[in-house]
């Protein structure tokens, strides 16, 4: 049973009953843990057509077998549910220390079901588990909630995952924040938590987790640590500049979406780059549980110290909104963290609103005196606040860019896939990445198979970004491997330094298995297909494997990638074939049988 605690907490918020269940270890291994295992429970227990914000939906906090172990970066956990934003399976990943604490308390997973009559929070202190009243913190910001609940339970070392006002108000782009600054950000998981009147989960765990083979684990971990230390990305670039080191790389390639993807290059990128952030605003690095990389940024603006912003956040609020003002971007990021909003979706929705305003669809009388003009620092800060508080047009914007643009009859101006806002790369100039985001089970997401790595960064090898040759195969392997890393409980950034065989060695040493790399990848493929089957049952048809019209029809107007469009129509059939699916994009019975689902 090493690696797993062997226990699940099932919390019925309707009647207040809390049960401990025994985890079937063979089942856990089949789906690895984390994202994979929780998705299995959702597919078994939540009918796919369930109202995502109704009592029938369930919300699962799920750690992996390496979460809380001595493995470097082994602190990740996933929040899995049906997404109220996209209607797809949602699995939102976060770092920090919360996941490890949950494992140290003795649990692999918490399954929340039903809906509490009044605001509540769950308190776990090893074997003591209780639902408590959250009346005092309902309506409060994330940092105030976190501090108040730690004080209330009287455990300084407790870890808190909480929603802010955005989740309470059922914003479809609401996040769940742990340790104030780490986010299970995407897909509106915070709204599901809010719909259940669940304000927070507070965990204190004092147990220790042993590997199946401690000596072997020590040896494998030593080797992996050495690779992380030898890799320039994990040892130098990320610690020095954070994820925002990508700003200039992506811009110089001409795939840096600017003004709601109307353009893909800006001469002003460096004003809000990772280099500038480090030079002017960085106080110190921060690190998640057992992380030797420490890419987190503690920044200070106007006397306020807080963590972030990350690359994707900087892009969403800077280039995508045409704002080259780092203090304003940092303030908007801080507001997202306090209200509990996904920074990518929030920034991208403001960018979409700016285009709607520029095109005359949003009228001045809707704006309360704060014009949604591209380039306005005031707009990105104030409209983030209005989205978090649900004020005026901000309430509509808090439902995400798709619903906003659709309400003005221009859904195509939402730069999203399956209603989830696209991140900071223009698919027109990077073909594999475009295929990846078009086919990702949770919608427009970059971290379900980061093709930017080989296509732009040259890792683990360089492949031509504008070519479509061989890309379907790359996408499949990256998607499957990522599903495994997410399920193990490790940070994706380790993949800049280590490969599938290393993850396999870590899994084997900690869990006590003798899997091959191929078996681990097959588990990833199993997870991917299971997610796909949930989406199909939920009515998300393969025709939703698409990109915004702009990205396949309108060539990039200027910059190094001028003239390029995404060739999705050519790539999709190759991808379905590579996956062993029907020509229509559906997993066939033989494929599912081969994967054991």
């Amino acid at each position: 049973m090493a690696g797993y605690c062997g226990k699940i907490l099932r919390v019925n918020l309707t009647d207040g009953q809390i049960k401990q269940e025994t985890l079937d270890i063979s089942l856990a291994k089949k789906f690895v843990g984390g994202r994979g295992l929780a998705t299995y429970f959702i597919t078994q227990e939540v009918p796919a057509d369930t109202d995502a914000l109704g009592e029938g939906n369930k919300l699962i906090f799920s750690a992996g077998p390496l979460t809380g172990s001595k493995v470097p970066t082994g602190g990740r956990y996933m929040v899995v549910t049906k997404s109220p934003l996209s209607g797809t399976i949602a699995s939102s990943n976060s770092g920090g220390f919360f996941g490890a604490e949950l494992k140290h308390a003795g649990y692999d997973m918490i399954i929340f079901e039903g809906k509490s009559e009044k605001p509540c929070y769950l308190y776990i202190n090893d074997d003591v588990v209780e639902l408590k009243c959250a009346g005092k913190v309902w309506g409060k910001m994330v940092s105030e909630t976190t501090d108040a609940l730690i004080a209330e339970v009287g455990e300084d070392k407790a870890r808190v995952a909480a929603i802010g006002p955005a989740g309470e108000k059922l914003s479809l782009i609401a996040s769940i924040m742990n340790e104030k600054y780490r986010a299970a950000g995407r897909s509106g998981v915070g709204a599901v938590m809010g719909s259940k009147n669940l304000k927070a989960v507070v965990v204190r765990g004092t147990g220790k987790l042993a590997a199946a083979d401690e000596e072997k684990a020590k040896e494998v971990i030593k080797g992996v640590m050495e690779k992380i230390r030898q890799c320039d990305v994990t040892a130098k670039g990320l610690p020095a500049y954070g994820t925002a080191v990508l700003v200039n790389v992506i811009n110089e390639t001409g795939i840096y979406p600017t003004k709601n993807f109307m353009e893909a290059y800006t001469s002003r990128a460096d004003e809000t780059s990772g280099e500038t952030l480090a030079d002017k605003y960085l106080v110190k690095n921060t690190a998640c549980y057992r992380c030797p990389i420490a890419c987190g940024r503690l920044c200070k603006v106007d006397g306020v110290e807080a963590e972030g912003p990350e690359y994707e956040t900087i892009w969403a609020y800077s280039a995508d909104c045409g704002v080259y003002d780092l203090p304003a971007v940092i303030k908007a990021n801080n507001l997202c963290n306090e209200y509990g909003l996904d920074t990518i979706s929030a920034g991208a929705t403001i960018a979409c609103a700016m285009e709607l305003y520029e095109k005359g669809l949003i009228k001045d009388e809707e704006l309360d005196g704060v014009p949604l003009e591209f380039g306005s620092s005031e707009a990105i800060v104030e409209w983030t606040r209005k989205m978090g508080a649900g004020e005026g047009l901000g309430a509509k914007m808090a439902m995400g860019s798709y619903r906003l643009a659709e309400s003005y009859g221009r859904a195509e101006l939402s730069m999203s896939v399956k209603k989830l806002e696209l991140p900071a790369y223009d698919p027109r100039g990077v073909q594999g990445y475009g295929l990846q985001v078009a086919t990702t089970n949770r919608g427009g997401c970059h971290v379900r198979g980061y093709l930017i790595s080989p296509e732009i960064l040259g890792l683990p090898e360089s492949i031509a970004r504008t070519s479509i040759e061989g890309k379907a195969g790359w996408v499949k392997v990256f998607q499957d491997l990522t599903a495994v890393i997410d399920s193990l409980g490790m940070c994706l950034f380790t993949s800049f330094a280590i490969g599938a065989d290393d993850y396999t060695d870590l899994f084997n040493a900690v869990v006590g298995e003798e899997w091959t790399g191929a078996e681990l990848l097959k588990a990833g493929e199993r997870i991917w297909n299971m997610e796909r089957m949930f989406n199909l049952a939920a009515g998300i048809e393969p025709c939703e494997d698409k990109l915004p019209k702009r990205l396949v029809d309108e060539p990039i107007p200027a910059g190094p990638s001028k003239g390029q469009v995404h060739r999705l129509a050519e790539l999709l059939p190759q991808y379905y074939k590579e996956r062993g699916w029907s020509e229509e994009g559906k997993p066939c019975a033989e494929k599912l049988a081969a994967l054991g689902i």
Partner: protein
Amino acid sequence: MTVEVRLFASFRNGRFKMKDVETEAGYSVGDVLGKLEIPVAEVGILMVNGESAAFERTLAAGDVLAVFPAVGGG
């Protein structure tokens, strides 16, 4: 002739962000890096006019050479 050289991340330390560098006809990317005393082993990403380039690439007047150490994120 001149080429525009853009340096990023740690390559800026003690050097510059952007500069027109004098070269001669036939100069390669590697030649320019040598002139700037940038160790080849530390280079992660090279671009000429936004396209991935090799050290052997011959530069033309007006080319934009972007030089990054190995970086990643996301």
